[in-house]
């Protein structure tokens, strides 16, 4: 433990912490722009400078480690002026078009400009006029607003291991961009949107599709059907000042009906369906020896894109099961359309997702049109959905709960934990156990696969048979697991694992690239706790016990991995170049 002083107040803190953390301990907030707790300190912006007592030197609180007997001044008249100057300099290269910016009201730079009472711009204004990169269907890069804090570059490289973004050029002319002046869509970008979730300003943001949604609900010829992803229900409340992790499922259903949606379904139903298909596929691989071991989950479109580019040799290991969103889309325009006697051509299928990659997934290949139409027509992120609700005058925080519609709206607890790291694994184990043994698990809480470590491994005892499992989240963490598999394969050794779950974003979809801003590990933890609470409160905990799941197999799909399932619910993968051009 290190003993030091912040503004004269004694602080005891673990060695290796930074001054920001020490200040937090005594309820002092030091302003930061480039620093983000998910990332190593970068010391780019200079806003967090503090004074060391009896020293003329200024320290950057994000990068300076705590030292025994260190005494730090975090706020005084001089530091106030320095910070104000830093802000004025940043603002001299940043457009003042806040009113039409996607980050209006959530921008970190705007917040500091307000707090520091910036009223004048004393420095020469020098803006760039570089064009926006709108090449992907997921995220937009606007270089004119970039403050070169470097968060996106660090996220893309360190957290995600993707290396789509890099600082290109130097000095004034530096831009954040893919290599060789390529547009994002031709780069290795996996569309995870973590850059947009970490950008402090409006330089990287989700492609806004709310207008298309409004157009659909106001079109009387369209039958608008909406599904919501597991992670949305524990994050949306943050946009309405509800405590982090509040479960708002019933309020979301209610809000959707007020928005004018015709049917309110739930991606969670198809998460259960995914477990039936993927779980059966796993049992088949384990018991018949047909298909590669380990089986790797394929729900995450950013991960799928990454695998196709960086690890195409793992294609045989990928579960052929589509993501829950795409399954839900396919059965919406087939099973539901038949049941409700609606022409699928008139159905407009919308998905509310915590994820920007989902916007890309809906047209990633021809398998996404299994119903004969676009299985999902539109994806809105949690952030877009929050804006829509606000603009529609719906007092979300106090709405009454409503149920989802039948026949593809009911879900088991296993489905809702798809939104967090380890959740798909846990849900799959619950059902695979029953598929293998014919018995129900005595305790469905598989705590061994829970937690926040980037890579977690363990063994699950299925009546004497040891099933080796591994979970990875945060795309950069996956390489250790995949290298293990590769080297076992090259040596002809037994695979180190039977089943692997991968989610591209740290914490899983709860911290997806389309979720409310300011996500940290603390917030991830609270959202995950919300999902486990939702699971525990569920009437059914296991996917195979969901009555609507039983019904869809009895009435429509016959059985998991049936011909119809294969056509609608499964997909294929293709090796792709890391750079398209």
């Amino acid at each position: 433990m290190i003993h030091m002083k912040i503004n004269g107040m004694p602080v005891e803190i673990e060695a290796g912490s930074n001054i920001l953390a020490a200040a937090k301990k005594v309820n002092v907030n030091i302003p930061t722009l480039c620093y983000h707790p998910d990332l190593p300190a970068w010391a780019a912006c200079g806003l967090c400078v503090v004074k060391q007592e009896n020293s003329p030197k200024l320290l950057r609180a994000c990068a300076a480690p705590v030292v025994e007997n260190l005494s730090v001044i975090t706020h005084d008249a001089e530091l106030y002026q320095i910070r104000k100057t830093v802000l004025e300099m940043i603002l001299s290269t940043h457009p003042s078009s806040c009113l039409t910016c996607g980050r209006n009201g959530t921008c970190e730079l705007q917040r500091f400009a307000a707090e520091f009472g910036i009223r004048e711009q004393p420095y020469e204004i020098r803006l760039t006029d570089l064009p926006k990169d709108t090449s992907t269907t997921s995220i937009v890069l606007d270089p004119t607003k970039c403050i070169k804090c470097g968060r996106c570059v660090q996220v893309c490289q360190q957290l995600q291991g993707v290396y789509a973004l890099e600082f290109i050029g130097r000095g004034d002319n530096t831009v954040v961009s893919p290599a060789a002046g390529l547009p994002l869509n031709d780069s290795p970008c996996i569309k995870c949107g973590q850059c947009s979730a970490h950008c402090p300003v409006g330089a990287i943001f989700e492609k806004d599709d709310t207008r298309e949604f409004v157009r659909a609900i106001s079109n009387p010829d369209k039958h608008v059907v909406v599904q919501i992803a597991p992670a949305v229900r524990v994050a949306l409340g943050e946009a309405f000042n509800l405590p982090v992790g509040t479960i708002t499922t019933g309020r979301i259903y209610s809000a959707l009906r007020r928005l004018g949606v015709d049917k309110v379904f739930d991606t969670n139903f198809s998460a259960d369906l995914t477990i039936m298909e993927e779980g059966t596929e796993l049992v088949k691989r384990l018991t018949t020896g047909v298909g590669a071991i380990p089986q790797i989950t394929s729900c995450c479109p950013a991960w799928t894109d990454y695998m196709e580019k960086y690890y195409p040799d793992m294609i045989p290991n990928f579960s052929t099961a589509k993501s829950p969103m795409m399954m839900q889309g396919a059965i919406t325009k087939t099973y539901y359309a038949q049941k409700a006697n609606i022409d699928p051509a008139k159905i407009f299928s919308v998905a509310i997702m915590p994820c920007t990659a989902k916007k890309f997934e809906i047209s990633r290949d021809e398998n996404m049109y299994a119903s004969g139409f676009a299985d999902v027509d539109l994806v809105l992120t949690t952030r877009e959905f929050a804006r829509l609700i606000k603009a529609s005058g719906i007092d979300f925080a106090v709405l009454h709960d409503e149920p989802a519609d039948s026949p593809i709206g009911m879900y088991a607890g296993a489905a809702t934990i798809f939104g967090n790291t380890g959740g798909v694994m846990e849900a799959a184990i619950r059902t695979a156990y029953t598929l293998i043994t014919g018995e129900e698990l005595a305790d469905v809480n598989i705590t061994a696969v829970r937690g926040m470590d980037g890579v977690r491994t363990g063994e699950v005892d299925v009546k004497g048979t040891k099933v080796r499992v591994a979970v990875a989240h945060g795309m950069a963490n996956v390489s250790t697991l995949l290298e293990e598999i590769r080297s076992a394969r090259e040596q002809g050794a037994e695979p180190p694992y039977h089943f692997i779950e991968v989610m591209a974003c740290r914490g899983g979809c709860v911290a997806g690239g389309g979720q409310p801003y300011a996500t940290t590990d603390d917030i991830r933890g609270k959202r995950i706790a919300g999902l486990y609470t939702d699971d525990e409160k569920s009437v059914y905990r296991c996917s195979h016990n969901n009555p609507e799941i039983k019904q869809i197999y009895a009435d429509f799909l016959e059985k998991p991995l049936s011909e119809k399932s294969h056509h609608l619910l499964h997909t294929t993968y293709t090796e792709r170049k890391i750079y398209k051009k």
Partner: protein
Amino acid sequence: MSRIKEEKGFSDELIAFITEWKSKPGNLIMILHRVQQEFGYISRDSADTVALMLDIPLASIYGVLSFYHFFKLTKPGEHNIQVCLGTACYLKGGEGLVDEIKNLLGLELGGVTADGKYSLEGVRCVGCCGLAPVMTVSGEVFGKVTKDQLPGIISKFN
């Protein structure tokens, strides 16, 4: 490696150099220098090849390539014209020479003429400030250059 030689045109010496430096820290700039020495610039294809040989992301290579003015991303002309824009030459009218050459050849700084004959770049100090303003064409130095001398100097290399 033979594929890199045949398809990418990397010489045996270059391949040996990269192989030797592959695992040494701080190797990237040195390797890129050698690639540019061999080709006169670093093409996308060469950058891809270096990325593959060193097993590093292409983005990291472009981060370095775009940071240092020394590295050229486009193939220079048959005759590369360098106009000094260091302090002395700048004060003595280096920029005016650049503008005039732009007009005469119809290209921009860092550009190449359509026929691939000439390229133009601004450089910092050639080391003979006493002759300011200075320019070089294909390595030949011209001092105390005036605008009206430019057509003659250029045509010398035609």
